[in-house]
């Protein structure tokens, strides 16, 4: 530890959002961002990104391949608040509106090396059938105010009603 500045440890993340399986949808693109704790700060690389639109592959597995690179370096002083990558996938609905197709989050792997993660994706549901219909009709599905909430626990605890 040199005299200049406090000691930190670095976390370098290299990888890519390879592909997705959305059996019902096509022509999707994805966004990623990172959620991390107070003791973390990105030092290099992109904290957010938005991918190209991809179509389903023609083969049997019908994967949506993005191969969208991720490259970011964090510095930190505390493993608490380890970064999580938050992915959100969007695509057009029948009327051509861009709607969200899935949110998901996963911690950046804790151990060095090559890791492959499969993230289950989900979207918030409409609160009622009627709203479900209108949101489908209007092309304004319920979505999170911020995709980052999927990586945060705040406000998601069971509340005594």
């Amino acid at each position, binding site marked *: 530890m040199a005299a200049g500045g406090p000691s930190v440890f670095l976390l370098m993340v290299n990888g890519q959002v390879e592909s997705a399986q959305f059996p019902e949808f096509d022509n999707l693109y994805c966004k990623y961002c990172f959620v991390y704790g*107070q*003791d973390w700060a990105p030092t290099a690389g992109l904290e957010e990104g938005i991918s190209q639109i991809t179509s389903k592959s023609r083969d049997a597995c019908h994967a949506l391949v993005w191969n969208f690179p991720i490259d970011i370096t964090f510095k930190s002083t505390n493993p608490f608040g380890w970064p999580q990558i938050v992915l959100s996938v969007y695509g057009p609905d029948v009327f051509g509106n861009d709607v969200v197709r899935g949110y998901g989050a996963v911690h950046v792997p804790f151990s060095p090396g090559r890791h492959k993660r499969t993230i289950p994706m989900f979207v*918030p549901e409409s*609160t009622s059938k009627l709203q479900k219909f209108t949101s489908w009709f209007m092309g304004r599905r319920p979505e999170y105010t911020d995709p980052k*909430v999927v990586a945060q626990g*705040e*406000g998601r605890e069971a509340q005594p009603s």
Partner: protein
Amino acid sequence: MNPREEKVKIITEEFIENDEDANVGKRKKNSKVQRQPRKKQPPTTGPDKMVSEESHLGNQQEPAQDKPQTRLLSVTARRGPRSLPPIPSASRIGFAEFSMRERMREKLQAARSKAESALLQEIPTPRPRRLRSPSVKELETEFGTESGKEVGSTQQEDDSQSYSRVKFHVSARKIKSKPQVPPGFPSAEEAYNFFTFTFDPEPEEAEEKPKHQDGTNQEEEEGEEEPPAQEGANRMDEEELPHGKDAENFLLGLDHTANEFLAVRPADYESVHVRLQREKEMLFIPSRLTVPTYKKLPENVQPRFLEDEGLYIGERPEVARTNQNIMENRLLTQEPGRRWFGDDGRILALPNPIKPFPSRPPVLTQEQSIKTELETLYKKAVKYVHRSQHMIGSGDPSGNFQLDIDISGLIFTHHPCFSREHVLAAKLAQLYDQYLARHQRNKAKFLTDKLQALRNAVQTGLNPEKPHQSLDMIQKTINEYKSEIRQTRKLRDAEQERDRTLLKTIIKVWKEMKSLREFQRFTNTPLKLVLRKEKVDQKADEEAYEAEIQAEISELLEEHTEEYEQKMEEYRTSYQQWKAWKKAQVCKHRPDQAGSGRAEEHPEEETEEPYPEEDPVKPTPPEPTDQAAIEQQVRERAAQSRRRPGEPTLLPELSLAGSVTPNDQCPRAEVWRREDVKRRSVYLKVLFNNKEVSRTVSRQLGTDFRVHFGQIFNLQIFNWPESLTLQVYETVGHSSPTLLAEVFLPIPETTVVTGRAPIEEVEFSSNQHVTLDHEGVGSGVPFSFEADGSNQLILMTSGKVSHSVAWAVGENGIPLIPPLSQQNIGFRSALKRADAISSIGTSGVTDMKKLAKWAAESKLDPNDPNNGPLMQLISVATSGESYVPDFFRLEQLQQEFNFVSDEELNRSKRFRLLHLRSQQVPEFRNYKQIPIYDREIMEKVFQDYEKRLRDRNVIETKDHIDTHRAVVAKYLQQVRESVINRFLIAKHHFLLADLVVEEEVPNISILGLNLFKLAEQKRPLRPRRKGRKKVTAQNLSDGDIKLLVNIIRAYDLPVRKPTASKFQQPSRSSRTFREKHAASPDTRSPTHSADYPLGQVLVRPFVEVSFQRTICHTTTAEGPNPSWNEELELPFRAPNGDYSTASLQSVKDVVFINIFDEVLYDVLEDDRERGNGIHTRIERHWLGCVKIPFSTIYFQARIDGTFKIDIPPVLLGYSKEQNMIIERDFDSVRSLSEGSYITLFITIEPQLVPGESVREKVTVRRHHINFWPGAVSMYVFFSFRQQFLDLLAGDEEEHAVLLCNYFLFLGKKAWLVIGNAIPEGPTAYVLTWEKSHYFIWNPCSGHFYGQFDTFCPLKNVGCLIGPDNIWFNIQQYDSPLRINFDVTKPKLWKSFFSRSLPYPGLSSIQPEELIYQNTDKVAAAELQDSRIEKILKEKIMDWRPRHLTRWNRYCTSTLRHFLPLLESSQGEDVEDEHRAELLKQLGDYRFSGFPLHMPYSELKPLIDAVYSTGVHNIDVPNVEFALAVYIHPYPKNVLSVWIYVASLIRNR
């Protein structure tokens, strides 16, 4: 021993053995038996010979027979030290323990074997007996008895199961005993001869042989098996010999020639003996004899038995003794190092690894076909019922049951605080209770009645009235009756005596108590015993008494006569016997009288010889009964146990009627005692299944040592109750409670339900020892009632708890009792001994006593490591010394994870930082990147925090001039903190809308609208403004938020006035503004003047916006009505980087919009250079400012309007000038409100969602409670006026209410206006009616506006509040310009109180009058001079770090004189005088300066205001400054502050 007998015995043994051979199936024997027929040699010796041999043998065996016994003795002797502790110091207890353990072990072994057999029996398939038995038998026959058995005592040898075993055992003994044969034994030679001569075909011979051979080699022993085998082989050779010779002969006969070449020699015969000798040289055959222990141990070392010392030694695997011996011998010979032997002289061995019971399924026998075994059976599916006793399964209909525990109270029967009197009282009460109980039962009476009835029965029985019954029967029944009478009488007497003694004791105790009370001269207990005498009819009583005695006497007499007769009978018989004996004695003395019968009598006689005195004495005839003696006896007894006739019956009655001596009449010690009692309180803990479930309230101990609780605990239980315990805790004063005692309550029967359960009393006692220094007798310590201290008593604390436990009854009348299935103890298997859980149930595991009992019963080896934890648990539980936690520890492994001690952890700065951050302490709430190492954390990080903690209660007067304000500031700070904390909590409560963006629930209009929208054009011609997307503040970071300030234009800015200097003054507009400006001297046209430096216009204003010390300014415009239309962008930083709503709401920063005049001065010294360059100095002069708090912007989202510029009343060098060019319509309107104005648009980009202050019902906007909610509640906040004034802080509403009240007090018509204003937002103004004009007052600033003033900040009016009603605006418009304020018109104003709801005449809860204290003028003056002025001057110097700051004292004093004038005139009409005076005094200075007028609350706003004027920014080298402060005190500590700042530049 008789040799013959022995021989016979042996023969029979042999015989039997032969018989047994078939089924014993001894392999070796079998082989021999098979071999024997092949010999086909007739027995050469007859039976006689054999017998003789046997006899010979027998002779030999005789000593051998003895040997085993000696050996056995030796064995026991050797075992002696084993069974006894080897160390002589071992105490008797040790021995007892040992023997106990020994016994336990035996029992355990027996139990195990039993369990094993039980297991075996359980196994359905029969064991292959046929296969198994041979091996078993073989084992037995081969090695005599099993080593284990041999270890056992001789007793085991006796209970031989089969004869053969004994036989072999004996034979084995014989073999072993050989070496110790005494020297008189037949020599080897003899034995050899004997052997060579006799070839015995009998199997036993084969047996015998080795013995003799063994005999030959006396030193070395041989194995039992090898010699016979070899012998057999030898014999075979010998037997084959004749055959071989025959063959040889045959060969010779065939071919003689061969004979010549061959040298024929007899086959080399080596005698067995020789060969054995030779073999002995080569081979080593270890002996089978037991190796003496001393050989196996080092020299002079006593064998040490670890087991006896209490160490655990595993069970050794079973190895036959002989094998062990062989091994030992071998080891001793081969490796003399003795390292194979343990301390106890045995071979080291690991514990037996073999489980006592098989864990493998039994092997299938061949008889039973595999098929049958594998055949599947159909079993009906059984629904699995959760059998656990501990939990109630899901199958149960309702999971919760209820147990009601009613604890009604507690009575101490002894307590350390008992005085002596209390002790007696307790005793008395106890006796009395006993008496009452006895009295109620009245057993004596019952027995008396019974006696009477029996006597009657006897009487009737004796009467021969029933002739049909046989006499025998009658006699029999009468006898029975009589015996019963006897018994009953005894019982009755005993009862009566007990009654009497009880009564006597009661009286005695009472007397003692009375004497004690007299002695100590005070009374402690209200107990009072009254003996009530019940008169009895003397005569009848006497008669009854006499009759009773008579009856008894007669009965006794009868009894005695019977007895007498019986005795007489006995006497007679014995007398007869004696006579006969006498005769016999006589006969005995005669010799030769022996007969066949006599001989038999001899032994009897002999046996009785030792007791010659007994019988031979002539029996004495029993004495006849003496009636008088009996009577005497009866009467004595009656007198003792019964009430005397005529004596009144004494009925004791205990009452609490007595009075207790009051404290002041008692001695000190007693008073102390009573006080001590008062300090004590008692409570009970209710423990259910050893877990505390509830506790009673703590009740003070009463003087009578009774505590009443009367609490019912409803235990909602889930488990079947295993134990119910009450723990009595006592608290003395404030010390921690001590456990007095535990009371175990029985678990009620299932039939006991609430309401039917009786109150029961359970006694408890404690073993605590308490010695007290007052009258209290203490507990567990001896005390005495006697003066001399004799007759000591030791009483322990004890008492009774009255309670009732019952099952609750549910709503539908069903008792809430767990089903009975839960209670059954479940199955018990053969394994239950081994398995504690199945044996005593899971509950037993929690019940230590049960567990200990089980352990004792099942004879667990306490030294077995497998049982270690269990044993420790039990020992802990039963010893009771160590502390057994009776609570459940959630993180029992926490200890393992504590990598550092708590102190160390707390010392860590990093941990502290993390901790504080997670606690959301304001200083650290948004601390980023907490350093990794402690050493990287600076101490100063905590300084602020620690200082704040320290100052929390210390009032800092540095920033606050007077203490009152400091207190207020502190208070506000605390309010703010609590509000912020509440917000922080609220921040975590997200609503769905906070997280998910979703279309609202569509209604038909929205739907229709949307449908309509579908049809509308994609690109309408007239685009409409769309709302910006709001951003929730939580995800923002620094730099995301910007403040957009759009400065559009300003009106009526003051214009320069030429100072009185040698320069030509700039011309002014001819038109003056109002009268006061008319007096201004020379005015000149706004045209460019050549005289003025650089020929400037009237004014060149620009706007500078400063926010959070970021400064932006517009370009410079020209003229008093400039138009900039510029957008300024200022970054916004939230405090601590916290962009949460709460934090944003608490931002206190203010946007300062300062208007400056840019003045250019030509600094060119030399006119000649004018052509070459421009040297100008830019000066800026502050004209005025507008302050808009950030919170207003935040809440309003945007601020759009024209605001009055706060221009100081005196602006030296400037005057309000009306531009001639601007001739607008509103001039007339504006005439009412003079001043300058600026039009602004301010917003935040991106738009933030304002905080949900409504949700929390608290706003921090004005750091006060917001009373906005409704008009009705307006009445409420009248009550806060006093507080408002005291606090010197309040929001607009409070100001407005106060102002309104002033107006009303002054007799004006005034209303409170609730509406929206800019920039305040929802606020309250005051409306007054004066001279046909309505005025709207801003209560905070004190400005007033006419109703039709365009620049009135109040933009709409919601309602008016008068002193007696509230009116709601129901007009079309709400702008004050357009509405009619005539509240009498019901069409325009809807009143709250109407005819239907009349004004109820709400009384004000505020004080009628507000008291205004005069402010301390001295303090104000001190504040003015020493504090504010000094601080401000220092600040200005600080702001000018690169320049010298000179203070012009002369100017300062002038200004100081001038300020009070300003205060008195409120800035009106003083400018010119002031200017004149200044000119007079500072004629050759260019002067720019202005007074600032502010209310005083804190120092910081003053500093900010001075800073924002930018006075300090002048960097002209010879600039001088002047600063004066004046504070005008108003009552109630309201201070008005005037600050005059000026800069002076000396003109050349």
